[in-house]
């Protein structure tokens, strides 16, 4: 993470003599979004994705969706380019380091071949690399069912992209690999400093107004979650004597070496007037806290002058059998409370959610778009992992969410 950035900065001056131009061409560009989001309940909080521990309720909040990004680009020659992008957004992780989404050196040995090394966007789904750039998509935020469960924004490593002409269209092949360091809010503790090995590839086919993308990403967790206090309590002989079931669940908390695989297909159509986009993914996981599941969405939109009207349907379901957690032999309140916490951690991470949204984007001025969106969510029992859940008590089955925002580029 920080070391990669330091290495890149240290390498840059050494690479400068390679450039053909004496002075690099520098440019500073950026983007921003301000969104007020609120719901019709105080029993559950809406968060943009699982990297956040804040939640918007009845009163509304600017926190989940508002962001501000700055990008510095340096062109050293036709072949060499460096870019840095930092995006201020709300999450409990390191505000400086975790918000650095891009810091890379790009080499273009041929016009249609790109090699990049450094910190790069996590390119698992169609929008995952530019989730923060609201101006680039019609909705107020990327579809929640699809992107809400994706807390990693970047990885440190390399990617290679090759573009080919196929008939009247273009095929882009991409392979990437590296390490992803990200921080997520964790149950019982501060924060989980997650580390994963990531590797994947994708194929994009663009033909006229159509864009098709298929991809696969493999991740392997490298660190244990901060649950040592809990696992040592489960291994305590006194606890095991009064609660024999503790032995059966004690080994469920290890996350190191666990693999998550994402298989994905997405399609987009935009003829200037009508737009449509869909994505579907299957996530295969042997990670207790991130169960296997499938998700998808479909969006249709129509432009009328500077106004785009759209609708969005989303669905996300995890496939997970409830892990049985037996009761202690004696109903000692402290032990029952402990058992319930263990049960909540093991079984409280399901996603069962569907939604319909209606929205409007109004391009009021070049590089400024106003947006408004209403969404209705249907949430299943133990299906609210993408939301900020209450410590106890039932979660609502239906939630209405409204959002008003502005996106801009500079």
């Amino acid at each position: 993470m920080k070391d990669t950035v330091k290495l890149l900065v240290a390498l840059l001056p050494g690479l400068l003599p390679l450039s053909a131009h004496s002075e690099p061409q520098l440019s500073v560009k950026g983007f921003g979004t301000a969104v007020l989001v609120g719901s019709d309940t105080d029993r559950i909080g809406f968060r943009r994705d699982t990297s956040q521990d804040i939640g918007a309720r009845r009163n509304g909040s600017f926190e989940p969706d508002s962001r501000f990004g700055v990008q510095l680009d340096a062109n050293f020659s036709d072949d060499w380019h460096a870019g840095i992008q930092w995006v201020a957004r709300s999450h409990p992780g390191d505000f400086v380091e975790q918000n650095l989404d891009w810091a890379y050196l790009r080499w273009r040995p041929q016009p249609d071949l790109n090699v990049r090394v450094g910190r790069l966007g996590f390119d698992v789904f169609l929008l995952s690399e530019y989730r923060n750039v609201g101006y680039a998509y019609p909705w107020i935020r990327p579809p929640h069912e699809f992107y809400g469960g994706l807390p990693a924004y970047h990885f440190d490593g390399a990617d290679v992209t090759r573009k080919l002409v196929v008939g009247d269209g273009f095929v882009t092949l991409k392979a990437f690999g590296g390490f992803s360091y990200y921080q997520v809010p964790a149950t019982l503790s501060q924060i989980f400093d997650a580390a994963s090995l990531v590797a994947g590839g994708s194929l994009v086919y663009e033909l006229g107004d159509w864009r098709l993308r298929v991809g696969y990403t493999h991740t392997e967790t490298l660190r244990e979650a901060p649950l040592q206090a809990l696992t040592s309590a489960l291994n305590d002989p006194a606890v095991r004597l009064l609660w024999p079931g503790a032995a059966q669940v004690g080994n469920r908390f290890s996350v190191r070496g666990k693999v998550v695989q994402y298989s994905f297909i997405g399609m987009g159509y935009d003829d200037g007037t009508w737009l449509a986009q869909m994505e579907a993914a299957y996530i295969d996981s042997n990670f207790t806290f991130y169960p296997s599941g499938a998700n998808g969405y479909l969006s249709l939109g129509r432009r009328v002058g500077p106004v785009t009207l759209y609708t969005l349907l989303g669905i996300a379901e995890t496939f997970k059998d409830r892990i049985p957690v037996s009761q202690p032999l004696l109903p000692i309140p402290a032990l029952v409370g402990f058992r319930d916490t263990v049960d909540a951690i093991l079984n409280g991470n399901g996603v069962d959610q569907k939604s319909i949204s209606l929205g409007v984007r109004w391009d009021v001025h070049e590089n400024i778009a106003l947006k408004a969106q209403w969404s209705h969510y249907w949430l299943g029992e133990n299906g609210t992992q993408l939301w900020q859940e209450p410590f106890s008590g039932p979660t609502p089955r239906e939630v209405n969410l409204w959002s008003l925002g502005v996106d801009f580029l500079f």
Partner: protein
Amino acid sequence: MNGKRLPLVLLLLLHSAANADVAVIVNPRNPLDAMTSKQVQDVFMGRTRSFANDRVALPIDQSSPLRAEFYRRLTGRSLEQINAYWARILFTGQASPPLQVPDDAAMLKTIRDNEGAIGYIDKAHLDGSVRVLLILP
């Protein structure tokens, strides 16, 4: 009298900007004779970085009102849509949008000075120093 004439002049100017043919131009040393609308689109949208003869293409954009006209005629899309498209490419570190020059005079000079450059101007401002590959009516 003057007070009445000014709006009329403005109206005529706006009228001509919206109705002028847009000429897609390259350096005279570029051996290409013509390009299709799709080929020009592929270069200006960053889908390809070379001409049909495999030479490296350097698209040059304008920051003048002609820019909106050029993209409307070439792609049927508004500037907002073009900017949203480039925001995706730029902020994912894939490529940068074409460099911009302020007006037709600067465009003519840039095209004359760069063998691989491709740009566009109002057809009425063509001066014979560049080669026209496509007229967007």
